[in-house]
């Protein structure tokens, strides 16, 4: 469960922000062929980035920025595929021989480790290491990453991780190769859960404190040879990694070199110029300003584009007057000019207009537009009618929370402008990036509306609709139900879908739930943002991976000419 964009620079918008989503987005539509080609073995791929990695410790790091990168140095029991399109989100065995054997009605899952897998130290990876690694998720100081293990695997209530509470009693390791998980309740898709970062093996007994954040112990094809947080990171080959045990990672280059802290505009300039080692470089999504500059045939060839898999929306706080009136919320839905909102983030190349809650990458999503307007430019008349009905023809003032980040502010201004004809005066309340979610996630502090985004961790409504609209999930802090919608009908449907055994049926049901919720208009879906990247001319094997919010699949990318 992740919000779309975390920590973007206060000073300049982070170009990697969009990729900072996790989730297995399926069926991305427009992944362009781009610089596919065949990657040669050798060379160093350069990565130009604005923001540094949050954590190298796998149990801490949990965002699109690190998830993709972790696959270079870490392995998990299972992992996503390495291919464009839907194949990329398919779960395949990695350290384990298969995607897990359920028993006990899906409450117990058994995994067997492959032979010949080892840490960079040369020590073989054992089931004990996996158990140790997973149990670290319970440590309150360390286990701040993926929450799934903790949510799904059974554990004593008092358990606080291996460093404080010793061995975890609920994970069994009958032998060095086998690891058995006992779940709180049956979980059909546990094979996907063990692809989470929490399941990266850590040598038993290591990794206390912040040890792994600076010196990770690699199990993947590369290991960290030099790391200056916020400045640079260098990966070299891990010679203890055996390609024979790994069918996913092509691992063609000899190494990777990250440069962090670059100004997004500078990154774009360098990528477009593509001089020197920048020919071997990849980077994040380009800035809106650079879109116009990559229209030449040469640059188009080096361009990759696809959906990010998230929905950017404006939550409407249904507890505040007059937003507690559904007609007012609907009116706002009609009135918002999504075109100008899209222009604010960089126009049609960088985003599609959103009509429903779930983005197109979600399986079972219904494509519909409950509040249509010509070209998405807003239907002021329809809105005015609804407002008149609601007795708000004279307009009102509402406060819109947004982050102290240019793009988010620009979107807020666009909404402000769009609502002006309805005499709705939007007061833009800018909140510091680092505290934004804290504020809007605290019902007592949030205002009338807030702009934010949501990315699914699963390519289904299960990780999208319930967290956002289940009225029983409203918490005093860390709330994600921004509209504070607590509708009995919606709650009931959520429970009904959760009871469904059939995944396909459930997905379809979520599509219907989407419509049911949007009738209540608790939010205004704004955009489905897209990824647009330029890679260096010597880059080969680059494609956007749907599992990593449209980031370039790092384990597949390489250089055309390794000697350059």
């Amino acid at each position, binding site marked *: 469960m992740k919000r779309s964009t975390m920590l973007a620079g206060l000073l300049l918008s982070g170009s990697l922000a969009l990729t900072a989503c996790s989730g297995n987005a399926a069926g991305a539509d427009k992944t362009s062929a781009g610089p596919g080609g065949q990657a040669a073995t050798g060379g160093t791929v350069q990565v130009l980035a604005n923001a540094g990695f949050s954590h190298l410790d796998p149990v801490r790091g949990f965002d699109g920025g690190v998830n993709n990168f972790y696959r270079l140095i870490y392995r998990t029991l299972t992992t996503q595929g390495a291919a464009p399109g839907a194949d990329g989100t398919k779960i395949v065995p990695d350290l384990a021989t298969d995607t897990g054997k359920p028993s006990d009605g899906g409450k117990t899952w058994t995994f067997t480790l492959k032979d010949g897998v080892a840490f960079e130290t040369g020590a073989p990876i054992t089931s004990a290491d996996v158990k140790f690694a997973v149990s670290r998720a319970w440590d*309150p100081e360390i286990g701040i990453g993926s929450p799934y293990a903790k949510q799904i695997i059974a554990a004593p209530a008092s358990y606080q991780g291996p460093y404080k509470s010793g061995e975890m009693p609920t994970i069994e390791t009958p032998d060095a190769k086998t690891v058995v998980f006992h779940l709180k309740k049956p979980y059909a898709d546990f094979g996907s859960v063990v692809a989470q970062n929490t399941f990266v093996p850590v040598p038993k007994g290591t990794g206390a404190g912040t040890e792994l954040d600076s010196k990770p112990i690699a199990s993947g094809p590369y290991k960290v040879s030099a790391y200056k947080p916020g400045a640079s990171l260098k990966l070299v080959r891990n010679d203890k990694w055996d390609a024979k045990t790994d069918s996913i990672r092509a691992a063609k280059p000899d190494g990777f070199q990250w440069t962090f802290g670059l100004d997004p505009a500078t990154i774009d300039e360098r990528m477009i110029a593509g001089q020197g080692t920048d020919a071997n470089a990849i980077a994040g999504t380009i800035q809106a300003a650079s879109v116009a500059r990559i229209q030449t045939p040469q640059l188009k060839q080096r361009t990759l584009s696809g959906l990010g898999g998230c929905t950017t929306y404006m939550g409407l706080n249904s507890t505040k007057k007059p937003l507690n009136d559904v007609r007012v919320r609907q009116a706002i839905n009609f009135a918002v000019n999504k075109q100008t909102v899209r222009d604010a983030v960089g126009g049609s190349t960088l985003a599609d207009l959103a009509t429903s809650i779930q983005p197109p990458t979600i399986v079972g999503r219904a494509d519909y537009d409950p509040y249509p307007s010509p070209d998405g430019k807003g239907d002021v008349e329809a809105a005015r009618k609804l407002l008149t009905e609601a007795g708000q023809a004279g307009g009102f003032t509402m406060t819109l929370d947004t982050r102290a980040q240019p793009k988010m502010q620009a979107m807020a201004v666009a909404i402000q402008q769009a609502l002006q004809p309805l005499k709705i005066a939007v007061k833009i309340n800018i909140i510091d*990036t680092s505290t934004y979610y804290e504020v809007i996630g605290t019902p007592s502090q949030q205002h009338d509306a807030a702009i934010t985004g949501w990315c699914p961790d699963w390519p289904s409504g299960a990780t999208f609709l319930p967290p956002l609209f289940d009225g029983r999930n409203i918490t005093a802090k860390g709330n994600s139900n921004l509209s504070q919608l607590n509708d009995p009908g919606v709650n009931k449907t959520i429970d009904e879908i959760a009871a469904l055994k059939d995944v396909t049926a459930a997905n379809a049901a979520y599509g219907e739930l989407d419509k049911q919720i949007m009738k209540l208009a608790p939010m205004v879906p704004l955009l489905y943002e897209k990824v647009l990247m330029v890679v260096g001319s010597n880059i080969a094997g680059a494609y956007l991976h749907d599992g990593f919010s449209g980031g370039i699949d790092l384990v597949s990318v390489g250089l055309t000419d390794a000697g350059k």
Partner: protein
Amino acid sequence: MTRYVIGRLGGVVVILLAVCLFTYLIFFKLSPDPAVMICGKTCTPDRIDSIRTVLGLNQPLLTQFWEFLQGIVAGRDYGTAHCSAPCLGYSFQTNESVWTMITARLPVSITVAVGAAILWLLAGVAGGLISAVRQGTWWDRSAMALALTGVSVPNYVLALVLQYLLVVKLQVLPFPSAPAFSDNPGLWFESYLMPWTVLAIGYACLYARLTRANVIDTLAENFVRTARAKGLQRSLILRRHALRPALTPITTIFGMDFAGLLGGALITETVFGLNGIGKLAADSIAKNDQPVIMAVTLLAAFFVVIGNVVVDLVYTALDPRVRITSA
């Protein structure tokens, strides 16, 4: 003299303590609960409590402050981990030792500051001197007009203009980065050239004006008349009798400016993406990383305050009148 130095250093400690306390109070008053921030996305009240305990946030503010100070002097313990002196804590964002973060970035800031300082001293003093000697000439007037212009350009505007012209359009310079000198001296120089220039121009113009004014004032001094009456060469009069008195006050200003820069040239480093203290400051502010903000603020204040003392000492050495009275 020793007494004087001790007295001054005492003042330094007092000021730094005040800066420290003020920063501490402000940020704990204004900022969101750091425990919540560390706790992250999947947070429970229990976790917040345990983080608060580890960080000592459950203690009274002044106790926390005292521990912070202790950490700097003697090191301190965070939960199980020990942080040895000088301990400025750990980043809330990256868990890195703040001290390490600072030492890693200081060289960049120092390189930027030193290079710029050399540039502006040379350009400023030379320009001002020539203007003073040729007072009223075409050279003087255009140099001073230029200096006014230079003082008026906001440095980020200049930075962007330069970057646009030299890097994007003409492509005579690479995009600024912070390569190590030992790796590639040529690239090192080219990379830093723009930051140096941008940073130096404002100061250079200021110093040119100052130098000119001071030299002109000094040339009107009675002792310069005496020197002329003694039949000294004009160059000797200029070099010995005019320059030293004219430049001594500039030393003071220079010391302060330079010390101010050692704490990071925030805008220049940010615009050029140089990973120095200034950028660290900007980044940590953006992320509300309190320990880092504290440390950067303290560091910058430290440089300024120490710079102040050093300047006074240097001044004492340069100006015999002060030297004797304080002895």
